[in-house]
């Protein structure tokens, strides 16, 4: 009983492991970008479950990411001593692997619980109203963290251990993609799509729409938490401002650009939009460009918004969005 999809996942993870053995040959600048791409893939693919497949609009993904980042970082910071001592007999590699895996799970679970708590009351709302509530949640998390001294407050939180590496990031990205694809392709996961297409019809075929919305929200938050945990142990410094509204918008942009409800498209958009600002920076420093154009390109928000406007005019369903939801007749 060994399925093809499981085999593909295992081969992918093995491949990632093999490639990660050579990661020391990658220059630090490129290594940084490659890891950022992986983390953004996790964020965008998981948000796509809510914004794409379930048709809800969440603007709070960075908030859930920060919950995971702080939860995982406080675990590795405050619980390292006793845990590593217990795990020490397994050897350094196994003990760190288990310890970091545990930290990421804690980050994911903390964010998942936050997602559940925010989701239950707020998913009674639709469209813009839901977007505003999730936006508000992101800001609340930020303000709370800014005022908790144990988490470093507004000064930020230094994470001693840089456990995150290429293997962890891309293995987690592979698992995220695997789970999201399994889910939406299963009969069970079609519940998400029915909520997006027509809630009234979904209820009429016996689907508990509230349950599916909360589920999508919780799962997406869980993966955002894992991404947060990876981010914290990659940058080794996190501060509340790094998980602000703009970060959420970045992730939403990836989902919209890729095409709501297309995992392939969202993965490609995550790659493109992570590289784009770096490329723009490189471009803005070219001496043959007039000064004003360089300044324009350097501020990534301007080309970003132009790109989005252009996309919405020419391909409102996103780069890869095929059968997106159509506007509903009343």
């Amino acid at each position, binding site marked *: *009983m060994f399925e093809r999809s499981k085999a593909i996942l295992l081969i992918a993870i093995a491949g990632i492991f093999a490639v990660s053995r050579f990661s020391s040959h990658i220059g630090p600048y490129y290594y940084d970008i490659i890891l950022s791409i992986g983390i953004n893939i996790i964020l965008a693919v998981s948000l796509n479950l809510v914004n794409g497949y379930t048709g809800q609009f969440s603007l709070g993904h960075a908030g859930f990411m920060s919950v995971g980042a702080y939860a995982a970082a406080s675990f590795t910071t405050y619980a390292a001593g006793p845990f590593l001592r217990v795990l020490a007999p397994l050897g350094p590699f196994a003990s760190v692997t288990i310890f970091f895996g545990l930290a990421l799970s804690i980050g994911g679970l903390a964010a998942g619980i936050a997602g559940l708590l925010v989701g239950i009351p707020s998913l009674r709302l639709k469209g813009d109203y839901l977007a505003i509530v999730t936006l508000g949640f992101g800001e609340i998390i930020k303000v709370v963290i800014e005022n908790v001294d144990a988490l470093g407050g507004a000064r930020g939180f230094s994470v001693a251990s840089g456990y995150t590496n290429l293997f962890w990031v891309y293995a987690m990205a592979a698992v995220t993609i695997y789970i999201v694809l399994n889910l939406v392709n*299963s009969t069970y996961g*079609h519940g998400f799509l029915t909520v997006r297409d027509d809630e009234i019809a979904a209820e009429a075929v016996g689907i508990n729409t509230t349950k599916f919305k909360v589920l999508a929200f919780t799962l997406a938050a869980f993966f955002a938490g894992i991404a947060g945990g990876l981010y914290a142990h990659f940058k080794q410094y996190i501060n509340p401002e790094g998980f602000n509204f703009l970060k959420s918008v970045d992730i939403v942009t990836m989902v919209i650009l890729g095409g709501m409800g297309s995992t392939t498209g969202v993965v490609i958009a995550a790659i493109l939009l992570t590289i784009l600002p770096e490329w723009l920076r490189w471009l803005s420093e070219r001496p043959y460009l007039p000064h004003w154009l360089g300044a324009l390109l350097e501020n990534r928000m301007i080309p970003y918004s132009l790109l989005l406007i252009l996309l919405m005019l020419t391909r409102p369903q996103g780069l890869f969005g095929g*059968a997106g939801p159509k506007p509903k007749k009343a």
Partner: protein
Amino acid sequence: MSEPLLDLRDVTVQFGGLKAVSGFNFSIHHHELAGLIGPNGAGKTTIFNLITGVYRPTSGSIRFEGKSIAGKKPYLITKRGIARTFQNIRLFDSMSVFDNVRAAFNMHLRHGIAHALWRGRGLAAEEARIEEQAGELLDIFHLGEVRDASCASLPYGGQRRLEIVRALATRPKLILLDEPAAGMNPTEKTELMDLIRFVQEKFDIAVLLVEHDMRVVMGICERIAVVDYGVKIAEGPASEIRCNQAVIRAYLGVDDGGSAT
């Protein structure tokens, strides 16, 4: 007489000062094909929405298989065994014909989310079983050849049929059809009548039909209830309804002593 499958007793629903349905009594028995007719705005769809849990009755009781379902959430009522179609077709537009039906198997799944996440043991078998059953249903209704097409690409009659197939996939004991003949030409209407009778026979279920088209209703319903202004004004077999004075008055308006309607 045995206990009715669905029993509405003294059902009243009030929206502000308006009594949309008032003191409505009606029941459907197992394997019965009943019709609900009335002029525009008489409250037919409101009664549908009361049965399917979209509205909660202000007073009165709605019982299905002896248990109250008044005001229960729509999806829970579907789980009890009442399926419905919609006056303005509501399919899952982004999905294929097959996936529309597959989605309706959702509530019967034995394996939950954990299996769907990890493709656990038994998931493949269950998915294969669903595929087979959904395929069979589609074949019965001549939608087998277009199973992978987008449901939005089906012609109107096909979409109506698909909606009925989707409702049947929930394995109902009672199916409510809301104006299935709307927008159909005479040939399609004749086909629809055969289809409804076929559904009733083949799946051994009760059918409640809301319909404007007299030919369809009179042609297939064993019993017809007529509502006007939220009140039931007549009930009986088609032959009786056809010559009932109150019904004729409601539909055509009769000049009785100067006060024309």
